[in-house]
């Protein structure tokens, strides 16, 4: 299998960059503004990588979109925050304190105010009155405030206004010249007002625009495109976040890409549709998330038994159960490993980046057909739903397609009177597979266990021998699969002090963590896994045995991969860094904990002051209808609840008057009590 690993070595070390945040309610048009900005960036020849933190709601609720803009291709959305476009009051309260020194906060002063006492030093506020500034333009739809704010941003971070104009023109082409002009004018108002009134707030970046346009893909759309390029012909799905965009992309492009796309009644139908198509002889795939995947598990064993190729994508989201439908997690590894009863060969892969989503799906389709088995791809919400600039040349339309023993005519050795043996016991475990409809190879594929011809065996003692042999035949296929896979490799210095171990989408953030650690004087390297089953136990152990401090970094609560690694190698890593609050890792978080581990600091699960404030915000929203906000926070010693507690003053939003005290446990996080002052 070709080496399609993205190597991180030749990234330029220093690059201009800036991170822009958009905060507001779902429906405030954040995604549109974000997309607009991203398009400009992509045309300027810069790169961007986004993270959209939203909630399971159609309207309302809180959304926060981050775009990291850089001259080099960054591999994660980072941990900076330099410019903030706040669409509503809630979001400015929540996120303004995080804007870094030197940063700017842009908002529509008709609707939003900014309490500067909460800001970090040297953060500039840019209040723009949409109503006043556009008073001469007639009635505008409220969402155009975003365009004005974008215009302002363009001035403040030194982006090219002409390209913005160009993109606005393209985007609103179908709406006519009037709308185009309106938008350009509003953007210009933002730009010029800022130039005139807030020039001193400008963030000075001297961008190097190459003006080479680049595509903008998410993991999901990359996977859809990659699948098509790799010969996908049939796709089935039932809507489920965060996998639905694969469906939407494929539906939209079905005709021109020659893919039949079928929405079905549930995930059980979906996976069986995909297996039916794969069985019949087309490349076939389906995608879902954790709960839908659970429903598919029975059929994964079916594919194993029928020896029908199928690719099943699980775009993981926060679990368990319905869990956090719009949050990210790497929580379904156990489920993938344990999918369906009994022992049968299945393959599990996890793309390490958005770009890799394109490649891995082709690999998966090849492996599925060559080895006639189900292949599971574990993606996740972070990678699947978030868009980033794709480096030119990352992908080629010309993907290697290997279909294995897919025959339109029986193999010569099976044309004699003994006839065609669909499940011939070969030493590779791979048996001849007919394109269904071909002459001379008629057979019945059964989920009951069977002999070489496909005839069912479940008789007393009679067929224990055949059963043993067909079981071994099926399992042998995994040896071949493992051989095709590139073994894991250390990236970075061999003799590093720390090895960060990861799988799937965390490759980029771990990569950046290593840069950060380096700047802190901590020498680290990275061992990342794309292939989870079958597993390179020997090779992994060889590497691990040479490592010093080994830390598994993953986005789940129990360290599922650390457990898997132990199960496959017996190797117990030194520690784990886990995140299971729905949000992805940022490099700084990992860096800090790595340092902590190296210093022997025990893991502290206590509720932090920031967390107590978050909890208070939630309490206020649910029980006090958003009327108050947390002000003073103190930690009091143990006070009768059996654990230390935080006590927070909750105050009026406008005048700061304290309206009561909320107590929150430090260890358990329990909200013990709300004492309103009377």
């Amino acid at each position, binding site marked *: 299998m070709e080496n399609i690993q993205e190597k991180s070595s030749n990234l330029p070390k220093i690059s201009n960059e800036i991170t822009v945040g958009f905060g507001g309610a779902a429906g405030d048009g954040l995604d549109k503004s974000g997309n607009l900005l991203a398009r400009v960036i*992509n045309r300027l020849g810069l790169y961007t990588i986004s993270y959209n933190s939203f909630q399971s709601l159609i309207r309302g609720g809180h959304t926060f979109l981050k775009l990291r803009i850089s001259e080099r291709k960054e591999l994660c959305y980072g941990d900076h925050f330099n410019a903030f476009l706040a669409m509503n009051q809630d979001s400015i309260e929540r996120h303004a304190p995080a804007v870094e020194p030197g940063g700017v906060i842009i908002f529509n002063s008709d609707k939003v105010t900014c309490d500067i006492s909460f800001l970090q030093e040297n953060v500039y506020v840019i209040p723009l009155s949409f109503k006043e500034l556009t008073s001469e333009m007639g009635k505008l739809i409220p969402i155009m405030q975003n365009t004005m704010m974008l215009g302002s941003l363009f001035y403040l971070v030194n982006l090219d206004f002409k390209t913005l104009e160009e993109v606005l023109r393209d985007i609103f082409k179908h709406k006519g010249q009037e709308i185009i002009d309106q938008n350009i004018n509003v953007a210009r108002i933002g730009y010029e007002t800022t130039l005139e009134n807030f020039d001193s707030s400008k963030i000075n970046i001297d961008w190097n625009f190459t003006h080479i*346009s*680049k*595509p*903008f*893909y998410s993991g999901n759309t990359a996977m859809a495109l990659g699948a*098509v*390029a*790799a010969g996908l*012909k*049939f796709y*089935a799905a039932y809507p489920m976040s965060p996998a639905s965009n694969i469906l939407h992309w494929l539906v939209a*492009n*079905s*005709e*021109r*890409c*020659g893919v*039949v796309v*079928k929405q079905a*009644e*549930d995930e*059980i*139908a979906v996976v*069986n*549709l*995909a*297996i*039916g*198509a*794969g*069985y*019949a*002889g*087309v490349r*076939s795939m389906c995608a879902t998330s954790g709960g839908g995947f659970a429903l598919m598990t029975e*059929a994964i064993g*079916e594919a194993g038994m*029928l020896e029908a190729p199928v690719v099943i994508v699980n775009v993981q989201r926060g679990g368990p159960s319905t869990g956090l439908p719009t949050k990210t997690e790497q929580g379904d590894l156990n489920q993938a490993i344990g999918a369906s009863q009994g022992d049968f060969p299945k393959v599990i892969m996890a793309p390490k980046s958005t770009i890799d989503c394109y490649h891995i799906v082709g690999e998966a389709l090849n492996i599925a057909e060559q080895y006639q088995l189900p292949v599971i791809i574990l993606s996740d919400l972070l990678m699947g739903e978030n868009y980033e600039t794709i480096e030119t040349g990352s992908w080629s*339309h*010309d*993907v290697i397609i290997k279909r294995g023993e897919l025959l339109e005519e029986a193999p010569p050795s099976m*044309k*004699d*009177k003994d006839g065609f043996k669909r499940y011939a016991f070969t030493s590779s475990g791979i048996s001849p597979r007919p*394109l*269904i*409809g*071909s*002459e*001379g190879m*008629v*057979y*019945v*594929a*059964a*989920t*009951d266990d069977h002999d070489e011809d496909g*005839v*069912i065996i479940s008789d007393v003692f009679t067929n224990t021998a055949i059963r043993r042999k067909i079981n071994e035949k099926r399992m042998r296929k995994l040896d071949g699969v493992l051989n095709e896979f590139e073994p894991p490799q250390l990236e970075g210095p061999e003799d590093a002090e720390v090895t960060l171990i990861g799988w799937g989408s965390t490759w980029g953030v771990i990569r950046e963590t290593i840069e950060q650690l380096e700047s802190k004087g901590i020498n680290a390297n990275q061992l990342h896994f794309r292939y989870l089953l079958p597993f390179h136990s020997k090779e992994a152990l060889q590497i691990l045995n040479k490592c010093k401090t080994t830390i598994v970094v993953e986005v789940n609560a129990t360290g599922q991969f650390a457990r898997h690694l132990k199960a496959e190698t017996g190797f117990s890593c030194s520690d784990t860094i886990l995140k299971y609050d729905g949000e992805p890792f940022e490099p700084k978080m990992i860096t800090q904990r790595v340092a902590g581990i190296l210093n022997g600091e025990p893991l502290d699960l206590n509720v932090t002051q920031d967390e107590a404030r978050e909890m208070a915000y939630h309490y206020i929203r649910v029980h006090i209808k958003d009327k108050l906000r947390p002000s003073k926070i103190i930690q009091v010693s143990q006070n009768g609840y059996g654990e230390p507690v935080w006590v927070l003053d909750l105050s009026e939003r406008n005048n700061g008057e304290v309206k009561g005290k909320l107590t929150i446990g430090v260890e358990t996080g329990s909200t013990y009590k709300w004492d309103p002052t009377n």
Partner: protein
Amino acid sequence: MITANTITEKTVKTREVEVSPDWCAGCGDFGVLSSFRKSTLEKEIKSHEMLVVSGIGCSSNLPGYVNAYGVHSLHGRALPIATGAKLANHNLKVVITGGDGDGFGIGIGHFIHTMRRNLDLTYIVMDNEIYGLTTGQASPTTMKEHKTKTTPRGNVEQPINPLMLALVSGATFVARGFSGQPAHLSSLIEQGIAHKGFAFIDVFSPCVTYNKLNTYSWFKERIYKLEDEAPDRDLTDLPDAMTTAMEFGDRIPLGLVYKVDKPTYEDTEPVLLNGPLVKQPLGIKKELFDQLLEETM
């Protein structure tokens, strides 16, 4: 050595295979099997052009006994497997067989939703009003008051009416047969396969081992043939078909209940206008690929 070309496909002449059925002596499924063989024989369908998909149950063992491609899939999942295969290669004649538990119990969601799509499939249910293979529990068509292993005081749940569900859900060919009348059944199967669209054939197929109520004679006392009593029925009249489908008591109609011509799903799927999916080229042309990338810029 005999070469591929000289292998005589066991098609028109016989749909028998070496493996013999393991049903109980007298099981209704034998009648369905012979009718099935006969009808596909009449239609001169070649072995390799036909795919028979089943679920799990006594009745679902049928594909193992006919000379055609077959999938003996999961309990309740035959219809989606068949749909996937049909969409992959719509040149295949695809027939689905199974039991009442398989199709109307665990599989009922697929039953209804598959009918909505009017794919060109033929679905034959061997309805014995019991779970046979699992030794005699009540099924969705078990009659009220029937005492089975799991309804020792008599069944209290209203049985489903498969014909009504089919009529309501969009099947374009709805019929009922009886394995005790194999010639009649055979003709229904033949018509069902010939029908372009979703054909549903509910077949009374007595379980001699576990259903002591709905026996051959029980059925014989009640059944009558629609074509005998109302040879001029308008087969496209849905309300009339429903009235017919509701008749289940002292008299039970057999025969073709409803038949209407509508576009199939395959007809409306533009990608399939270029021929069966299995024959279409894989991958993507450079121009389209570049265009797709460009559309995001």
